[in-house]
């Protein structure tokens, strides 16, 4: 059990609040007079201030107070929301984040407050807090009290008897109830508090102590207090006990308290009472255990299958079902919507727009598409790279856009949807597109292609992802992409994903990423090539066909097969993997595809589907290209998982070579 630490919980919560505030601020830049957004910012800051002060983040609370006050003024119509205010608040948000993390630079805060003061009308001087005469007055020898509680006091939870007890505890006290206000029984409302009391309180009791007793009803009750004796003893009064200071504080200032707020909240909220926070590492551990369980279970199923023990088989089937369900549940636990991933780009695009002086709008779609949490985290950096490239190089400055008959504002679009076992994420812009001439010039300059070498458009664009492309000289002024796209590609491939670039000169560029929903367990098709077994990710499999001996003979010498009037390149895995064993009489073709181009993989046998727990290969084998990982089979042996994207690329090379030869 971890020890509960409210301060740590506050840090987590503060980060979330600041992110929500940031989102609302960014929305605000488009809809400056949306009261719901102003409210949302205000509420976030308000909570941050209140909780921050609770947990000793005094600097945060003090700083936040200023920003909150500014938004409160806007909320109440006393100031106007301006872009400058929003920009200042964004800077303030970053400073608050630093205050939460404990790495704030105090000068930053001071500068922001100066900027803030300029952004809103100079703050109205708050009415000075009335000085409190806290228990400094002279004590008397006692007090005569006459009081009547508010009529609704009992119904509102005030415990009248407890109040009388408190009064008695102050000193020697005699109480007499007056019932003159009690109406006839038939007019009596059960909960009304109608009794009045007269009391004499003897002793050196400070006047404030009496107020403390009635603190919560003081404003609404009848209370008269007169000193018992006129001879006022100049004794030093005891200080008011500070116990109820916090409750009393309302009297110190009459500052702006938010009016009750009923406006709709933008952030989607699940009932937090039903949520449990779990460190991601524990989920990972659980995932590993589930993976091991799935392996052990498939071994059990295999053993049970070999025996004629019906009882054992039924238990094995039960375990198989349970393990499968556990696996599915586990997967769902790890899935998060891409909304949080996309959300992080609003700020980036906002900042890039400021940096580059371009007008940039960010559109998002399909934010509810879910991906494995760890996949999402590892996607962030590549996406930043792509979006940054699009803003820096893809989108034109406003005047250039207008000259080309486009709107002044460029658009970056992030879209996601799920397709089979993969999440498809598209990053597109409506900028100038990739200039083929410049790519070629650059590729020739860096020796990637010979001058004048004939290249298909796809091959030319593919150069952008070549490692040698971006490491070459200066990339300034290169239209389109190129800055480290090889790094992006490698990272996407590490996620067992693929990347595809489509670009129309003058109209924009679109990059499509296909990422498996999860990295940990996949459904695989187990195939045999020679004596070895391999796993093909089922998500990539389009169909399985038989390769008849006749077709096999006919196709010898050329690696293309006719599939429904379409020529599909295929790879003989036994050749690719240099298997010595003689081929089976009836080989099979497994047609796989990533993107649009299918490739056939010729195997000896299709063994069946296999729940595949993906294990990483060692650094020695990561780069070979044909394999994306390995898995452990039911018999304890190891099967390599085919990297379909790489094989498809290989198939396309063959196809291109065949076309040229033809």
């Amino acid at each position, binding site marked *: 059990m971890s020890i509960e630490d409210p301060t740590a919980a506050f840090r987590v919560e503060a980060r979330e609040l600041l992110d929500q505030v940031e989102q609302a601020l960014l929305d605000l830049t488009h809809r400056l007079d949306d009261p719901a957004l102003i409210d949302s910012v205000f509420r976030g800051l308000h909570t941050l201030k209140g909780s921050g002060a609770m947990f000793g983040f005094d600097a945060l609370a003090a700083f936040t107070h200023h920003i909150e006050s500014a938004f409160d003024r806007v909320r109440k119509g006393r100031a106007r929301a301006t872009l400058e205010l929003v920009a200042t608040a964004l800077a303030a948000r970053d400073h608050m984040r630093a205050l939460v993390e404990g790495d704030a630079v105090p000068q930053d805060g001071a500068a922001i407050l100066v900027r803030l003061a300029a952004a809103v009308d100079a703050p109205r001087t708050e009415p000075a807090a009335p000085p409190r005469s806290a228990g400094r007055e002279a004590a008397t020898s006692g007090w005569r009290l006459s009081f009547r509680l508010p009529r609704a006091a009992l119904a509102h939870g005030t415990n009248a008897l407890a109040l009388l007890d408190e009064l008695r505890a102050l000193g020697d006290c005699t109480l007499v109830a007056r019932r003159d206000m009690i109406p006839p029984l038939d007019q009596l409302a059960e909960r009304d508090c109608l009794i009045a009391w007269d009391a004499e309180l003897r002793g050196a009791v400070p006047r404030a102590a009496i107020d403390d007793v009635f603190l919560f009803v003081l404003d609404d009750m009848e209370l008269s207090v007169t000193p018992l004796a006129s001879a006022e003893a100049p004794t030093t009064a005891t200080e008011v006990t500070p116990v109820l200071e916090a409750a009393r504080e309302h009297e110190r200032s009459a500052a702006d308290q938010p009016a009750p707020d009923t406006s709709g909240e933008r952030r989607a909220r699940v009932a937090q009472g039903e949520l449990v926070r779990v460190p991601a590492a524990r989920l990972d551990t659980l995932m590993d255990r589930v993976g091991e369980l799935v*392996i052990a279970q498939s071994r059990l199923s295999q053993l049970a299958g070999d025996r004629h023990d019906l009882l054992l088989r039924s238990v094995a089937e039960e375990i198989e079902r349970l393990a499968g369900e556990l696996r599915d549940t586990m997967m769902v636990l790890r899935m998060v919507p891409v909304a949080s991933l996309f959300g992080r780009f609003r700020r980036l695009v906002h900042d890039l727009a400021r940096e580059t002086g371009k007008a940039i709008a960010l559109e998002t779609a399909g934010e509810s598409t879910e991906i494995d949490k760890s996949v999402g985290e590892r996607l962030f950096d590549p996406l930043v790279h792509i979006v940054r490239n699009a803003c820096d190089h893809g989108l034109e400055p406003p005047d250039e856009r207008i000259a080309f008959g486009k709107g002044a504002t460029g658009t970056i679009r992030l879209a996601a949807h799920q397709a089979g076992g993969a999440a498809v994420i598209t990053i597109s812009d409506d900028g100038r597109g990739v200039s083929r001439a410049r790519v070629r010039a650059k590729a020739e300059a860096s020796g990637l292609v010979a001058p004048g070498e004939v290249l298909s458009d796809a091959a030319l664009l593919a150069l952008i992802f070549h490692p040698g492309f971006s490491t070459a000289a200066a990339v300034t002024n290169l239209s389109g992409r190129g800055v480290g796209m090889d790094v992006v590609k490698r990272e996407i491939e590490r996620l067992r994903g693929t990347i595809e670039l489509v670009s129309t000169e003058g109209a924009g560029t679109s990059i499509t990423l296909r990422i498996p929903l999860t990295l940990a367990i996949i459904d695989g098709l187990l195939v045999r090539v020679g004596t070895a077994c391999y796993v093909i990710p089922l998500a990539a499999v389009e169909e399985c066909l038989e390769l008849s001996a006749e077709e096999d003979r006919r196709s010898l010498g050329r690696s293309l097969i006719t599939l429904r009037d379409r020529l599909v390149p295929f790879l003989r895995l036994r050749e690719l993997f240099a298997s010595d064993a003689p081929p089976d009489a009836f080989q099979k073709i497994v047609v796989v595809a990533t993107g649009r181009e299918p490739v056939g993989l010729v195997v000896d046998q299709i063994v069946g589907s296999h729940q595949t727990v993906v294990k*990483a290969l*060692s650094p020695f084998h990561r*780069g070979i*290209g044909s394999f994306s990982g*390995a898995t452990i089979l039911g018999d304890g042996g*190891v099967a*390599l998982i085919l990297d379909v994207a*790489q094989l498809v690329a290989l198939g396309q090379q063959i196809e291109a070579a065949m076309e040229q030869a033809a």
Partner: protein
Amino acid sequence: MSARSIGGWLVKGSAAIAWDAHGELEVLTFDLGGERFAIEATLVREIVELLPETAVPGAPALVGAVVNHRGRIVPVADLRAAFAMVAAPPTVESRLVVAELALDDETLLLALRADRVREVVTLAEASSGDAPSVGVRWPRAYMRRLVRSGDDVIVLPDLAAILAPAFDDTGVGG
């Protein structure tokens, strides 16, 4: 030279020999292709009988296969490939020496093929020498020291240097 960077990974403690204060080193000795090798005993995790191996097509012969070692996919290294020895079929005495190499931020398990595992012995720096530049048919860079122990000459291979080409081959990606 206390560590060596290969393929972006840093294999620590491989090149230098960590003789202790008395100039001694505890090693595990094993036979391979008629020669006797030794690796630091601290690197050895386990000695296991041969496991069913899965060949990795396209991988260098030095690390041409993987095995399932307690649920982990472990590459199998055959030092014969590095020392230009003739491949030999396994015998009843063949074993895998599972060693743990420390990389930058992860540990890499490696199963070394051995024709026969000998013993854990203490070698003395005093009886060690650099590999002679002539008279040895192997690449000098692959040996850290030759150590005399009794009548035997034991080779302390430089695993980092031996494995480096395997990284280089595959480090860049398809």
